[in-house]
């Protein structure tokens, strides 16, 4: 589904990703771990197409298409979803309206009929229940005044609504207390399926206690220094990142 080969990218003339190779297939859950500044968030943002990041080498295909030739909206419509580390507040736009606009844009692109107000209401009700989100959140402006936990739950709701093929979760566990972490994890698990792949970018393995990955990769200095199964995450929890950095 996602094939990344020797990806090099950076920001403001500084190279951060120094050649990343990653292959993600449908149904798989990958965790990308690494110390601060290793390039985890850069990787997530480059995949989603954020302005300001420049791809300087290598390639990435998503469902066989060149990812870097697509606008951010086209990537989303093709089924790529980025759960933001810092979700953006948009005053004046209700979450409900935002989600309906996004869903219909995606459905239109995918050749599906757009949902009217009533159909959308039914749709959103189901999704909110699936990820355990209080519907009162929907009538509030996007992320405005949301607590850290509410923001991350809203990201998971958006993922549920847009039904992506590949979800990239950027530090989704950061800033969550134990209750919020469990709710968010249950939401993520509820969205796991044979057709959907996930890439979880995280500093700590805390989230991985609840969402068990099939593969764990350790990013150091913009390269994947080590890959393994979930036992690798447990080892990192015990020993920290130092020993891998030394190995490199």
């Amino acid at each position, binding site marked *: 589904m996602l094939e990344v080969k020797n990806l090099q990218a950076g920001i403001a003339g500084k190279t951060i990703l120094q050649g990343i190779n990653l292959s993600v297939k449908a149904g798989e859950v990958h965790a990308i771990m690494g110390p601060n500044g290793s390039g985890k968030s850069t990787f997530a943002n480059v995949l*989603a*197409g*954020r*302005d*300001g990041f420049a791809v300087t080498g290598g390639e990435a295909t998503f469902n066989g298409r060149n990812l870097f030739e697509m*606008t*951010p*909206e086209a*990537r*989303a*419509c093709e089924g790529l*979803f*980025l759960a*933001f580390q810092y*979700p*953006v507040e*948009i*005053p*004046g*736009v209700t979450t409900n309206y*935002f989600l309906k*606009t*996004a869903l219909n*844009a*995606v459905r239109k*692109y995918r050749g599906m009929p757009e949902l009217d107000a009533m159909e959308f209401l039914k749709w959103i009700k189901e999704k909110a229940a699936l990820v355990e989100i209080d519907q009162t959140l929907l009538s509030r402006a996007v992320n405005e005044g949301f607590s850290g936990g509410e923001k991350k739950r809203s990201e998971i709701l*958006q993922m549920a609504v*847009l039904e992506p093929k590949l979800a990239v979760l950027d530090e989704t566990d950061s800033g969550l207390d134990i209750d919020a972490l469990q709710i968010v994890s249950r939401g993520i698990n509820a969205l796991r399926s044979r057709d959907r792949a996930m890439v979880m970018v995280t500093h700590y393995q805390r989230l991985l206690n609840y969402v068990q990955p099939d593969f764990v990769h350790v990013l150091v200095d913009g390269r994947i220094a080590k890959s393994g199964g979930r036992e690798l995450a447990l080892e990192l929890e015990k020993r920290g990142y130092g020993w891998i950095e030394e190995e490199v």
Partner: protein
Amino acid sequence: MVTTVENYYVSEYESAAKTLVGGNLPWLKERRALALRRFAETGFPTVHQEAWRFTDPTPIAEARFRMADTAPDVDPAALRRISLTAPDKIQLVFINGRYAPKLSNVPAMQGLYVSPLAQAFQTSDRETEKTLGLLADVRQPFTALNTAYFADGAFIRLSTGFSSAEPIHLFFISAGTGVMSHPRIIIDADSDSKATVVETYAGLDGESANNVYLSNAVTEVRLGENARLDHYKMEMESATAYHIATMQVVQERSSSFFSYAVLLGGSLVRNNINVVFNGEGAEGTLDGLFVASGRQLMDTHTLIDHVKPHCQSHEYYKGILDGQSHGVFDGHIIVRPDAQKTDAYQINKNLLLSDDAKINTKPELKIFANDVKCKHGATVGQISADSLFYLRSRGIDRDAAKRLLINAFAGEIINRMGIARLREGLSEMLFARFNGGH
């Protein structure tokens, strides 16, 4: 001899005067004559005057507008096209400054008197005499010109205790090119009365027409004790038209005034709103939105004069500026020595959509009392790259995302409006305006 433009409006006056309403009223004749003399003395404002620093009215002066001889027939369908709310249950329509009875609806309501000025002068000229020309400052050239030249206008009188939520809609439609109109509106609210008034200014052929005309309005409002007025102004003139307006509000004890001013059309627009708190405990809320593109110039001047103690004023204006447009916001607040316990705040936020658009925003607070709360703030920004990316990352294309963010910015003002049809109409209009090409 060189005829100055001021001379032009003086020499033209004699023939124009025959067609103006209230010609038989000595007091009005006197006030009109005084106004014309004032105008001849002061002439048009120039950019050398502080209040007109950013807004050069020279093109208006040079155009030498004439009074329209005839008003074209306008059918109700055309009115619906240019209005966001028509047909309204209570509506007075004026075409090129003249009353159009066929398009107007004035149902009889106990305690409410609404009529064109022509009729008010016949039936209750004493009432009009108490207000007309006594609130607005005739030393202001455009107010003077209006006072001398107004062909007709609207008179709204609310009796003590009258209350209605039904908006009273005043439409001032301009048609043709080279013509001027000077709408005059009087709103006189007795104690404990409550009403909503909408003033719409539009070109007959919509915002995009190329008619060059001048619409120069003056609205005088007196609010008695505990009276409340909700006032909406929708300025949707043709793209090449000039619009100048002054609203003068005098508030007595514990009265409230809610103003929503929306500027959308016209090539040069100047909107003045002046509020005087003449009694304790009065409250004024001034909200506004101006949306300019192309080479439009939109200038808002507000003056809130806290004369008496315990009054509150809240002011929130937003500007959206695209293309090479220019916005001006000048918010003047005076707190007089007696006006203790004044609570005043003023905010102006602006969204610039292009590198060539500009805004001059200037708060001016003059505070002569010591126990007061006054706050002001102004911001100028662009569409946030983070917000744009967030929306795009959810599948919403760039243009749609931009439109959504522009509407969200405007929505903060629009959502404060109490008339649902106006809110919805405005939102749709803004979506359409920023559809593609920006």
